[in-house]
């Protein structure tokens, strides 16, 4: 079934326009509340004590001084930790990789630096913080291993594959032989840095113990269902004993996909003390779980002199923790992007003594596409081809890794429109050929790609007699604009004004929906909302047609349209009835429906679905001083239908800014002697600030896609993918120096001459 249902029973009025965020007023007045901000009577505060070592064991822990501080309620350590489930699988959340998830305070063993070793609970925050500083921990230290470059020999193919993560495809052709035989060969190693998500809101959980003994939990999570399931497993609670909410997230970027240890500790303390507890992590503690782990990548490209690829090899070794096999798709993109008869892709892991890495905005794609798109630029120079021409020469309309056509792929339009907006035709390809005053100017480009996904999702809708509609489900709005686009979809489907629609998210009392991640939310929740509203439309229509003297008598559903709060016969506005009148006249208090959305199996069997982009970047470089300024970025995006031009543009802007960070600034620096990230704060881990960001231009190219009835493909990740490559290619164009290790900081430019 690939027939496209109309987006709405009503006319598209809001969908496709640039509506301001519906949650905007709450956010600009400070009324939007985040997980660590909900009040509760008698709330206690927990502060986490973090391990000073990366590996070893706790020989002794002395909490006496902390416990003696007036106002301290309890200090929980591995020695006195109340029991929770003893089955490791009970701690496995919905997006957990294979392995045994970390459990806080489970034993005296230390497996990463910054691991929680105690929770100090007190009557107020300052008392807990002070007492936490008094907890003395005596360690037995084992030398940690955190340098993946020194551990590549021990790399392995993960025995258990992570659900939803495609392992590299079987090789086809003979890449090694073809590479050796190729006239043009490009081969290099590419490295980037470990990066941390650093959403502006540090992770926090407020666990409220209700009078009836149930728990209301406010948790920083990208989907309350995951927290709900985790608490149920770890604490042996029935679903009805726990309600999880998280109406607003202060950014996630993947860091909020899995329940983190502050939730476990807050829940542990609340259950133990029988009183409400809040645990908020410090910014420094944001380096003690989940990060984008560096991969050491090698790419070998063989080509004919005209640029046609004859061999493509892409190998990656990525770090994971000692206790879980985190996996992401790093190398497959090379096989999906370019047509080539001889391809070999490999991906392996190596274990290091850090927390388990996790999904961070476009996980794997940021890493792998950086490497392949830099290598393609190298090939462009090796063959004397324009970088766009080279990509067109190797363009493919079908996904070779699975031998399926793409459902849609408007990448050529991205190249064309992006190049035109950027002024690419004015580029002199010669490195070091463009200057402005003292600065070298460089123009580079790259392709971006992300898999377009959809997840099983439901949504509820209630239309009340006053003509107001409430919709919602459990998913989270990370700042992505989900509240707004769901409101638009609902308003259009039922022909209601925007301010008659209220969207509720992030509450386990609402309809089931998965975590918000992978760019699947617009497609999944959007379709579910549309279906729920369409169901209500049909119910309302049936009621209306059944009314005495109904203006819709003898009219089929297909012949009516929902508009301005009314059902009217298409082409004959004189025949119409207000929804409020329908409910009133039929003595109906409210109409309710639940919509279910799931990936279209038929479509999935026939097609593979990806979003694409073409990124063009300009850098200006003071070569002598090593200062790189990214002065201009144009990103042309092919991601199906755009529901909200304003919030969609913001999604892409955000991805580009994070991509600039990845290219030029961001680097979590490990001291391998002690296995500790040393620049664990926002002063020394440099995310881009306002002064780093100049002109950014976003283009959405038209693309019709039929994977779901809305025609959307998702936007959360695609904005960042390829940005680092475009910038590093621009740096090469400016300087003639190929820097294959991100971030491109002053020292690297200076070291090159």
């Amino acid at each position, binding site marked *: 079934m690939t027939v496209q249902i109309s987006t709405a029973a009503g006319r598209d009025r809001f969908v496709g326009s640039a509506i301001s965020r519906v949650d905007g007023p709450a956010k600009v007045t400070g009324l939007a509340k985040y997980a660590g901000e909900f009040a509760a009577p008698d709330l206690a505060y927990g502060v986490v004590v*973090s391990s*000073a*070592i990366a590996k070893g064991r706790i020989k002794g822990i002395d909490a006496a001084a902390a416990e003696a501080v007036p106002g301290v309620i309890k200090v929980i350590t591995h020695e006195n930790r109340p029991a929770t489930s003893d089955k490791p699988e009970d701690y496995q959340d919905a997006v957990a990789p294979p392995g045994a998830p970390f459990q806080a305070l489970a034993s005296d063993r230390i497996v990463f*630096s910054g691991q929680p070793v105690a929770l100090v609970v007190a009557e107020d925050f*300052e008392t807990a*913080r*002070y007492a936490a*500083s008094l907890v003395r921990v005596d360690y037995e230290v084992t030398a940690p291993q955190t340098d993946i470059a020194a551990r590549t020999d021990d790399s392995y193919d993960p025995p258990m594959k992570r659900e939803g993560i495609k392992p590299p495809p079987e090789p086809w052709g003979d890449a090694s032989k073809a590479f050796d035989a190729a006239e043009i060969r490009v081969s290099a190693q590419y490295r980037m840095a470990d990066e941390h998500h650093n959403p502006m809101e540090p992770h926090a959980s407020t666990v409220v113990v209700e009078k009836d003994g149930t728990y209301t939990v406010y948790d920083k999570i990208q989907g309350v269902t995951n927290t709900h399931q985790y608490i149920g497993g770890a604490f042996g609670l029935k679903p009805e004993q726990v309600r999880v909410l998280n109406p607003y997230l202060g950014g996630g970027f993947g860091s909020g996909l899995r329940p983190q240890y502050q939730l476990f500790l807050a829940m542990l303390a609340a259950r133990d003390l029988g009183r409400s507890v809040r645990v908020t992590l410090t910014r420094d503690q944001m380096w003690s779980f989940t990060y984008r782990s560096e991969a050491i990548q090698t790419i070998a490209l063989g080509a004919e002199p005209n640029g046609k690829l004859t061999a493509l090899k892409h190998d990656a070794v990525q770090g994971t923790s000692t206790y879980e096999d985190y996996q992401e798709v790093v190398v497959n993109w090379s096989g999906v992007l370019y047509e080539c008869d001889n391809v070999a892709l490999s991906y392996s892991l190596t274990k290091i003594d850090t927390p388990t890495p996790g999904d961070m905005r476009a996980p794997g794609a940021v890493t792998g596409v950086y490497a392949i798109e830099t290598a393609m630029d190298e090939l462009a120079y090796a063959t004397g081809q324009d970088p766009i021409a080279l990509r067109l020469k190797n363009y493919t309309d079908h996904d070779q890794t699975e031998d399926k056509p793409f459902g849609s792929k408007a990448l050529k339009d991205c190249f064309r429109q992006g190049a035109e907006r950027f002024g690419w035709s004015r580029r002199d390809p010669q490195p070091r050929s463009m200057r402005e*005053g*003292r*600065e070298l100017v460089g123009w580079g480009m790259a392709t971006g790609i992300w898999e377009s996904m959809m997840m099983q999702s439901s949504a509820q809708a209630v239309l009340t007699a006053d003509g107001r509609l409430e919709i919602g489900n459990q998913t989270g709005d990370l700042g992505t604009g989900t509240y707004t686009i769901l409101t638009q979809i609902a308003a259009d489907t039922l022909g209601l004004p925007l301010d008659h629609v209220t969207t509720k998210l992030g509450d386990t009392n609402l309809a089931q929906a998965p975590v918000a991640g992978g760019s699947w939310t617009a497609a999944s929740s959007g379709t579910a909302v549309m279906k729920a509203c369409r169901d209500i439309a049909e119910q309302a229509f049936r009621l209306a047609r059944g009314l005495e003297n109904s203006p819709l008598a003898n009219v089929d559903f297909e012949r009516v349209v929902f508009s301005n709060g009314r059902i009217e016969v298409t082409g004959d506005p004189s025949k119409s009835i207000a929804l409020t009148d329908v409910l009133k006249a039929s003595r109906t208090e409210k109409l309710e429906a639940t919509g279910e959305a799931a990936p279209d199996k038929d479509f999935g069997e026939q097609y593979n679905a990806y979003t694409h982009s073409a990124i063009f970047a300009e850098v*200006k470089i*003071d070569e*002598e*001083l*090593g*200062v790189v*300024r990214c002065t201009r970025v144009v990103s042309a995006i092919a991601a199906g239908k755009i529901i909200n031009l304003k919030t969609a543009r913001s999604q892409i802007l955000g991805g580009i800014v994070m991509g600039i960070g990845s290219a*030029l*600034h961001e680097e979590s*620096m*490990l*001291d391998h*002697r*002690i296995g*500790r990230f*040393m*620049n*664990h*704060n926002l*002063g*020394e881990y*440099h995310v*881009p*600030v*306002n*002064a*780093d960001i100049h002109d950014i231009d976003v283009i959405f190219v038209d693309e019709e896609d039929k994977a779901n009835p809305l025609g959307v493909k998702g936007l959360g990740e695609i904005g960042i993918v390829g940005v680092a490559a475009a910038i590093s290619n621009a740096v090469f164009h400016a300087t003639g120096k190929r820097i294959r290790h991100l971030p491109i*900081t*002053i*020292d690297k430019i*200076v*070291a090159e001459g």
Partner: protein
Amino acid sequence: MNRFDYVRPGTVAEAVQALGADPAARFIAGGTNLIDLMKYDVEKPGKLIDITRLPLGEIEERDGGLRIGALVTNAALAYDARIKERYPLLSSAILAGASAQLRNAASTGGNLLQRTRCYYFYDTATPCNKREPGTGCSAIGGVNRIHAILGASDQCIATHPSDMCVALAALEATVQVSGPQGDRAIPFAEFHRLPGDEPSRDTNLAPGEIIVAIDLPAQTFTTHYTYLKLRDRLSYAFALVSVAAALELDGQTIRTARLALGGVAHKPWRNGEAEALLQGQTATRKTFEAAADLILREAKPQSTNGFKIELARRAIVRGLEQAAAGTPQSQSDKRIQ
């Protein structure tokens, strides 16, 4: 953060007395570094003496120069019309540092006393001779791309983080202090220390002393100056290397040269020999390179900061070029002149 007592004196004498009476006490003014360090348990004062109500918030004319009260905020100082007109180097250096919010809170005296940004100094999980004398220096052989290349010791390789102080060093300011033994003036070059074998001491302030003012001498550099700061992002980051350069030129001949470096040592770095070398010379790149080479002759790299030596050399040359050309670095337009 530890617990502490709090007092708020109304006079300098009261403040000095309060500090003298309690060795665990600390003055607090802007608080932008002290509270930061207290939250990391790096500083654990038993008492805070809030000096913000002392009458030290004025900028006054004095002996042809200006006397800046210790409590004048960094922002008030940078935007003061007299400073902008007569000491634009100082204004520029201040605006190159921190953020608008921090500059609005931070005081002049406090800026002199801000502590290093060495990762290990800040992290109580690691040994640090500056934080806990005798425990060792973790930065040596560790993550040290931001650390010192000049004047370091085998006890400490930290750098002084201030931008303002680099300009004050170049301008040859004087620090006025008051203490139990009375008032005294400390030439800026003698205010901060090198780590030596006592890295826990950042400055030569004697126990119980308070900074009351900074005196700027009559000599100003209003045309040929620059503050050039190189860092890991274009704003809101500490200097990898910074250069305060000020020249007086007679045609193309250098009559006076002042040069101070930030981000490279435990104190704003000056080299009298190099300044003397510039004097009387023609303002050419070659001259500047000779000065840079002289300054960096003694430079020593750590495991991962060797690039800073070459970067400093280039920054010195460019800074002097900017100063000589009368094209000071803009702190908002990030294109380097």
